[in-house]
C-alpha cells in the first residue's frame, strides 16, 4: 500500500527518532512510503487558539502536500483529529475532503487498515505505562474511555500485547489528561505543570519504568515534568516499541 507520511512539526524538530521508527515500521509492513518534503504542520495550534485565519495557510499547505494519497499516516492523534474533524478554515473542495477522510493515526492504520496484530521482531521486557492522548482516546476513540459505559477495547494496548516481555502497568487514573493541551501548557502553566506532575507520579507509583504513548506532545510535557521531579521514568512513542527498539 502506498501511503504518505506526515511528521508533525514537534516530532520533526524534537523527536526525529519517532519519525524514523514510524517510517521503518511502515516499510517493514510492506508499505511504500512517501514523505512530502514541503510539509510543516496541520494548523492545529492556531485553530485550537481560536485563530482560524492564522490556521488557513498551514491547512492549505497540508492539503496541497497530501492531496491524492489513499492514506496519510501520522504518529499523532491530535493532528489526526484536527485534520479529520476540525480542518475547516480552508475551502472544502473534494480534494480537501479526501485528505481529511484519508488521514490515519499510526495505531488506527496498523490496527484497522492493515490489521497487523503481530510484531514478532519486537521485544521490550519492561514495565510500561500506556499514555493515550485525549484526542486519540475520545475523538479517534482508539480505546474505551473510563466515562463511557460500553464493552472494553483498547487498540494501542492490543498492539503492545504482541510485544514480547512487555508488561503493562495500571495507573490509578489511566485516562486522566496529562495537562499538555497545546498553548494551555504555557498560558495555563500552573495547572498544566501540576497535572503533568500528577500524571507521571501516578505512572511511577504503578511501577512503570517506561511511559509509552501514541502522542509525543503529551510525552514532551510529561518528560519535562518527570525530569524536573527527578523521577526515573523513560519515554517512548508506540512506533518505537512496535518497531523493535531495545531499551
Amino acid at each position, binding site marked *: 500500500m502506498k501511503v504518505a507520511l506526515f511528521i508533525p512539526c514537534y516530532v520533526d524538530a524534537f523527536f526525529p527518532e519517532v519519525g524514523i521508527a514510524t517510517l521503518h515500521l511502515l516499510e517493514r509492513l510492506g508499505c511504500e512510503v512517501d514523505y512530502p518534503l514541503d510539509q510543516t504542520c496541520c494548523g492545529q495550534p492556531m485553530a485550537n487558539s481560536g485563530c482560524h485565519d*492564522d490556521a488557513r495557510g498551514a491547512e492549505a499547505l497540508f492539503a496541497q502536500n497530501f492531496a491524492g494519497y489513499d492514506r496519510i499516516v501520522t504518529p499523532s492523534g491530535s493532528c489526526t483529529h484536527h485534520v479529520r474533524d476540525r480542518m475547516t478554515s480552508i475551502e472544502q473542495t473534494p480534494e480537501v475532503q479526501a485528505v481529511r477522510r484519508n488521514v490515519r493515526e499510526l495505531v488506527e492504520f496498523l490496527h484497522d487498515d492493515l490489521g497487523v496484530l503481530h510484531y514478532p521482531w519486537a521485544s521490550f521486557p519492561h514495565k510500561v505505562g500506556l499514555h493515550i492522548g485525549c484526542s486519540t482516546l475520545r475523538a479517534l476513540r482508539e480505546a474505551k474511555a473510563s466515562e463511557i459505559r460500553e464493552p472494553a477495547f483498547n487498540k494501542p494496548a492490543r498492539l503492545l500485547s504482541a510485544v514480547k516481555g512487555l508488561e503493562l502497568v495500571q495507573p490509578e487514573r489511566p485516562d486522566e489528561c496529562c495537562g499538555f493541551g497545546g498553548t494551555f501548557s504555557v*498560558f495555563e502553566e500552573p495547572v498544566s505543570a501540576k497535572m503533568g506532575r500528577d500524571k507521571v507520579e501516578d505512572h511511577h507509583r504503578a511501577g512503570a519504568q517506561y511511559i509509552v504513548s501514541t502522542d509525543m506532545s503529551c510525552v514532551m510535557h510529561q518528560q519535562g515534568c518527570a525530569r524536573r521531579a527527578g523521577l526515573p521514568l523513560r519515554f517512548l512513542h508506540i512506533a518505537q516499541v512496535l518497531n523493535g527498539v531495545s531499551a
Partner: protein
Amino acid sequence: MMNRVDHAEASSKFIEAKDHADFHDKRLWDLRRKRDSESEALPEWETLRALASQIKEHTLTHLGDYLEEFERNATANGMVVHWARDAAEHNEIVHRILEAHGATILVKSKSMLTDECEMRPFLENRGVEIVETDLGERIQQLDDEPPSHIVVPAVHKLRGDVAEVFGRTLGTDPDNSDVPYLAESQRRHTRPTYLRAHAAMTGANFAIAETGTFVVCTNEGNADLGANLPPLHIASIGIEKLLPRIEHLGVFVRMLSRSALGSPITQITSHFRAPRPGTEMHVVLVDNGRSERLGMEDFWYSLKCIRCGACMNTCPVYRRSGGLSYGATYSGPIGVIIDPTFNLRKYSALPFASTLNGSCTSVCPVKIDIHEQIYKWREVIAQRHQLPMVKKEAMRVAGKVLASPKLYRAAVEAAAAGLEHLPRFLVYNPFNAWGRQREVPAAPAQTFRQWYVANRGGER
C-alpha cells in the same frame, strides 16, 4: 469595563496551598469514581443519556409552549406565577412579594439561579435577613464567599477552615474540627431560624409543564423544612428547567444524583404542587439571557444542563484550580461555556482554561458537547478581538511560519543546530512558562527531515 478574569493567576495561588489543592483533587475525583460505579450498575446508562438529551432538545425547541402550559397548570393548582426577564426583574419581583407579606426573614435552600441574579445582597440591602440552610452554602455565606462548586459549595475548604469560619461567626471552638461537632453546631444555629422565618425560598431542579408542579432534589432536608414551615414559599426557576411530562422526570431523577455525587438518588425528592391551606406559593420563571442563548446556533445546547456538576468533578483543570479561580457564578467546564454569554470580555480567558480533553462531554448526563463548545468559544473570542495581545501575536507569527516550508525549515533547523531556545512558533510566547516547572526537551542533532534527506535523498 470589567477586568478580565485571570484564571491562570488564580489557579497558581490555589495550587500553592498544597494540602488544599491535593484534597480538592482527591475529593472530587472520588465523586467521579463513585459516579462511574453507579453508572456501571445501570446497563441502560448510555440509553438514558441519549433519552435525556432528546427530551431536553425537544423541550428547548418548544420552550414557549411548555412554559405557557406550565403557567396554566401551576396557576390552576393555586400557585402564583411571575415572569422575570432578567436578574434585576427577578430580584424586584422577589422583593415585592416579600414586602407584600411584611416578610423580613427568609430561609433559603440552594439555588445557583439566585447567585446568578446576585439576589442576596439586593435583598439584604433592603432589610431582609437571609439564612442559607444548605450546609455548604451556609459555610460559604458565613465566610462571605461565593460557592466554589454548584453541588458541593464549600468543597475547597478543609474541615479546619470550617472550624475557623464557625469559630469566627457562630462562636464555636475554632480548634475543634470534628465533623459531627461542626455539623451539629451549625444545625443548632440554623434550626430556630426555620421557626422565625416569614418566608422560604427554594430553587427547582425540574418543572413539569403537564402537571404545573416543580421538583426539588436535596440531601439535607433543609429545603423541605423551609417550604413547610413559613406561610410563604417562593421558588426561583430558570426557564430551561422545564420538562414536558411527569413521565420524563424518571429519566432525569435516575441520573442526577448518580452523576453529581455517585449516589443512586438524592435523599429527598420533593414534588411541589400547591400551597398548603392558608399559605402562598410563588414561582418566578427567570430568563436572564437564556432566550438569547437559545438563539445561538453553536451554544444553545448548554441549556440542556441539569446542574449535576459531573463535568466539574471530572475536569482535571477544575479539580486543580478550584471553582473560585473562574471568578464567575458557574465554574468548571459548564461555566466556561455559559459565563461568556453573560460578559464576553470579563470571561474571555475561561474557554482557554481547558485542555479540550473531552472528559466533560463524556460524563455529561444530557450529552452537552461541552468541549466542542469550548473550542467554538475560542473562535468567537478571537473574532471579537478579546485574545491577549501576546497570544494573538504568537498565533499570527506561527501561522505565517507554518504556512511556509522555507520559514518553517529555517526555524526548526536553527533549533536542531543547538540554539538554546526553541523557536517561538513551536512553543508560543511566553515560552519562559514552559521551563518554570518542566525541563525543556533537548534539541536533536538533526530534524527528521534532515535525516530523511541525508538518508533517503529527495532534496529539490
